[in-house]
């Protein structure tokens, strides 16, 4: 077993503000830890080892196998899911920071409220105008295939927090994760609110802040392509308006 050095972001705005009267005194800093790294160790396990050394260190995690999307962090400058990212090959000391552009609650734990608000804004559920059938709404295998590459999103937030457009306008731009879900329902043959969905995306902000920077594609731990989905939305919008 080899020892690995990690430098993690530490910041406790609440406690620091309490112990020191001037809130401006509360400053983030990087703290270096050394942990034993068995072969195949994932970043999440290293963070757990750090927590064993210093229990005040905070980060989110849950399933440990890339399904729940809780442990998105910024590793050596790139967003990733800690639980499925091996650390053996990385440059040391490994720099672990919270997802960029989000307010820090404590250490690696960030406030994702705006991210979820943008997700909610695209109405990520089937909308039917016809009366609901007695049983299921049928869909052909070909139509079902159109949802591949869209439904797999676990909402970890790696993409949106890597997107400069989302950094500048997180209150107005939906961001790649929400727009991928917007296309997921636009592309669904069972959904009947295409026009309303497209109308809701008009204007310079919600959709059109995307400048195809493609950070989202680069960091998505599920290998999805929000930029392509955004392109499809623009195409459909064009098709419906000329």
């Amino acid at each position, binding site marked *: 077993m080899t020892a690995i050095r990690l430098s993690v972001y530490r910041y406790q705005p609440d406690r620091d503000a309490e112990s020191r009267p001037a809130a401006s005194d509360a400053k983030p800093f990087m703290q270096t830890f050394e942990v034993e790294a068995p072969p195949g160790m994932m970043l999440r396990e290293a963070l757990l080892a750090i927590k064993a050394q210093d229990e005040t260190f905070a980060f989110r995690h849950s399933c440990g196998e890339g399904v729940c999307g809780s442990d998105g962090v910024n590793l050596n400058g790139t967003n990733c899911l800690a639980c499925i990212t091996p650390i053996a090959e990385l440059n040391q000391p490994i720099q672990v920071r919270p997802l960029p552009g989000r307010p820090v609650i404590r250490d690696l734990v960030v406030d994702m409220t705006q991210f979820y608000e943008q997700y909610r804004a695209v109405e990520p559920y089937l909308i039917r105008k016809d009366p609901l059938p007695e049983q299921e709404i049928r869909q052909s295998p070909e139509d079902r295939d159109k949802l591949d590459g869209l439904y797999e999103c676990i909402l970890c937030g790696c993409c949106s927090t890597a997107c*400069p*457009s989302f950094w*500048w*306008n997180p209150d107005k731009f939906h961001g790649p994760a929400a727009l991928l879900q917007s296309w997921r329902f636009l592309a669904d043959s069972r959904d009947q609110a295409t026009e309303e969905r497209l109308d809701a*995306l*008009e*204007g*310079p*902000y*919600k*959709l*059109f*802040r995307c*400048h195809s920077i493609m950070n989202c594609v680069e960091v998505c731990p599920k290998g999805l392509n929000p930029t392509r989905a955004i392109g499809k939305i*623009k195409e459909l*919008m*064009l098709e419906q*308006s000329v």
Partner: protein
Amino acid sequence: MSRRASGLKAWLVQRISAVYLALFGLYLALYFAFAPPQDHAQLAAWAGSPWVALGLLVFIPLLLAHAWVGIRDVLIDYVKPLGLRVGLLALFALMFLASGLWALQALILVQVG
């Protein structure tokens, strides 16, 4: 541009103008690289020839429209205070308008002179 049309239309203007700018820009680059005019008279004759004049006449408004969408994107992204943003937008709008009219005047002068 209305608020409703400011997304899709701006994006479309940007994409379509980009195609023309790329093609005509390539022609300009090749022309000035391989057969550049030797003096002002040659330049004026080139700019006054019907096809080039037509090409330039289309090029100028498309270039300005493309630049307008681009600068508007930059200002929307980075400049938050409303007054400053509107001021800068107005400044660029005036600058682009002046540049366009100036270029148009030059083209007309080449034709009549």
